[in-house]
């Protein structure tokens, strides 16, 4: 019998995905289109945030949206009804987006005239955190009814995001959600993260979010 050999590999498991993600990021950097990956649990307000963003920035920049859902087109229809170019990716049971799926969405969306593209990832705090989509910035939403303990349960998600939007602040008076506990837990995982409290329903904090987005876009275009 042949002797057993130990073959060194030392490769990143997701190297193909990471490489394609880098290529997408670079291509969009050259064309001046900022790609945002929006992640959260189901029902925390991703689509509502996109609608608020589209409304608030309609005279300021050209927005496009890539929607991902396991099996429906409801979100893309809502966004398109606002006059925002949108494509829907049906992941067919997959729980997350990877860079090859985002590449398909970018091909379907005419990106040339767009300043910002928001990718609405599959609603899930686990799987999407593990895959680089090619986005320049990762944004997540945590809504008040989900509770302030979520950074303890899903630490990876909080550690990979640039911005945390705490949505549904209009529910604060009806819950025992502790904003200080949340802040402390999130900052321990990710000291650089920007935390903005918002309510897509009342509009609270939306201006601060839109200002963040405008500044991020200005920085991005300046670095081209």
């Amino acid at each position: 019998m042949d002797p057993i050999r130990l073959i060194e590999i030392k490769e990143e498991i997701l190297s193909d995905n990471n490489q394609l993600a880098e290529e997408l990021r670079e291509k969009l950097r050259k064309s001046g289109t900022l790609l945002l990956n929006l992640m959260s649990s189901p029902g925390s307000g991703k689509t509502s945030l996109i609608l608020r963003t589209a409304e608030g920035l309609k005279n300021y920049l050209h927005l496009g949206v890539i929607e991902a859902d396991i099996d429906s087109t409801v979100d893309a229809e809502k966004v398109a009804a606002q006059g925002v170019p949108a494509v829907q990716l049906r992941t067919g049971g997959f729980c997350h987006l990877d860079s090859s799926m985002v590449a398909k969405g970018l091909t379907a969306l005419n990106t040339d005239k767009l300043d910002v593209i928001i990718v609405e990832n599959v609603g899930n705090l686990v799987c999407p955190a593990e895959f680089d989509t090619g986005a320049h910035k990762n944004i997540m939403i945590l809504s008040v009814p989900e509770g302030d303990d979520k950074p303890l349960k899903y630490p990876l998600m909080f550690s990979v995001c640039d911005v945390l939007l705490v949505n549904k602040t209009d529910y604060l008076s009806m819950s025992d959600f502790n904003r200080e506990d949340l802040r402390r837990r999130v900052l321990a995982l990710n000291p650089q993260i920007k935390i903005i409290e918002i309510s897509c329903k009342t509009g609270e904090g939306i201006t601060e979010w839109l200002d963040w987005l405008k500044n991020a876009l200005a920085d991005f275009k300046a670095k081209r």
Partner: protein
Amino acid sequence: MHELSVTEAILKTVLKHAAVNSVHKILSISLQISKLSDLEDNWIQRYFDYLSKDTVAAGALLKIERLPLLVRCEGCAKSFETEPADIGNMVCPSCGEKKVALVPGKQYIIKNMEAV
């Protein structure tokens, strides 16, 4: 569920190395995965067994080493290791400071494989 994508990537990589090294059979594969990852070891192995059925990797055992979480103290700048369950109550073992932060970086590495 995302274990399936990860497992496909593992299989693709080891088959590439198997071809280059004229391997007849892969016996085991050593992986290093961060403790922060929610990948389930059992599911990776089950998906791997299913996907690798008709390849030289069929029957290979996945040896998964979990890499510890590294935390840096903002007080004394020393680093220490922690468990995911302790993230809510991290205290620096050197100076007692509570302002500490996770050192970023996900790690998912295929280290090596045993083969004949």
